[in-house]
């Protein structure tokens, strides 16, 4: 019984010349484990004031018609905070959704595909949002 290969072991490079040590070293930590955690915290801290500002400002607007909204966006601090909100928000969101996908989507192919879609989605939102703000701010049509 002790000499029986464990389940799944047969599939793994049966004749590899790599020593078990080399294999372990090759699969070890990429030394970026804390990076994700830290950015999640950093973006959280930034998003507390940014999101509260956004919700309060939006609710404080006297109306949501085109003139009012563009006038609001054209104020310097609105532009700054809106762009910060979009960049920080999409970043934080991407980090969070990524973890959920990693936890609940199984199968290498599906997982890779989902993670790619998550990344694309957030990049599109960030780019479209920031460009839209800049267009309004710089007074294009």
């Amino acid at each position, binding site marked *: 019984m002790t000499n029986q290969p464990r389940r799944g072991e047969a599939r793994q490079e049966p004749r590899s010349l790599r020593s078990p040590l080399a294999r372990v070293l090759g699969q070890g930590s990429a030394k970026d484990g804390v990076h994700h955690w830290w950015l999640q915290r950093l973006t959280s801290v930034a998003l507390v004031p940014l*999101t509260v500002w956004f919700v309060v400002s939006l609710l404080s607007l006297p*109306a*949501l018609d085109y003139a009012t909204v563009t006038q609001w966006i054209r104020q310097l601090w609105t532009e700054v905070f809106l762009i910060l909100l979009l960049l920080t928000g999409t970043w934080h969101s991407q980090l969070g959704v990524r973890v959920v996908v990693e936890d609940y989507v199984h199968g290498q192919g599906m997982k890779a595909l989902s993670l790619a879609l998550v990344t694309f989605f957030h990049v599109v939102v960030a780019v*479209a949002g920031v460009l839209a703000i800049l267009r309004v701010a710089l007074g294009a049509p």
Partner: protein
Amino acid sequence: MTERPLSPHLSVYRMRRYTLLTSITNRATGLALSAGLVLLAYWLVAIASGPVAYRRASGVLSLGVLKVVYAILLATFSYHLFAGIRHLIWDTGRGIEREQAKRSSLLLALVSLVAFIGLAWWALHATGRAP
């Protein structure tokens, strides 16, 4: 890949309901807010596309279905905000004793509910709404 030992999974923990509930809710509300980014981007792009396009988009954005979505987003925002602050406090090493965590989960439910009711009331009574 060889079968490697896994860390104990969800089922082995004796989760008291509040730990499980607050954690899962934080994730779910986070996901909902991520989905809400679509609306934010759509709104911003509509503004950038000029008055005619904005009026058309306003028609879409003030649909009845979306009012429910806005209410959900306000609720999820209220929760995720305070749950996130709770996590940040935990990160400093404070409040992680069982009794403290139990109390703060109750406080979290209360504060986020009050915040949601406040925001929803504000949104309903703000003048000249309907985007």
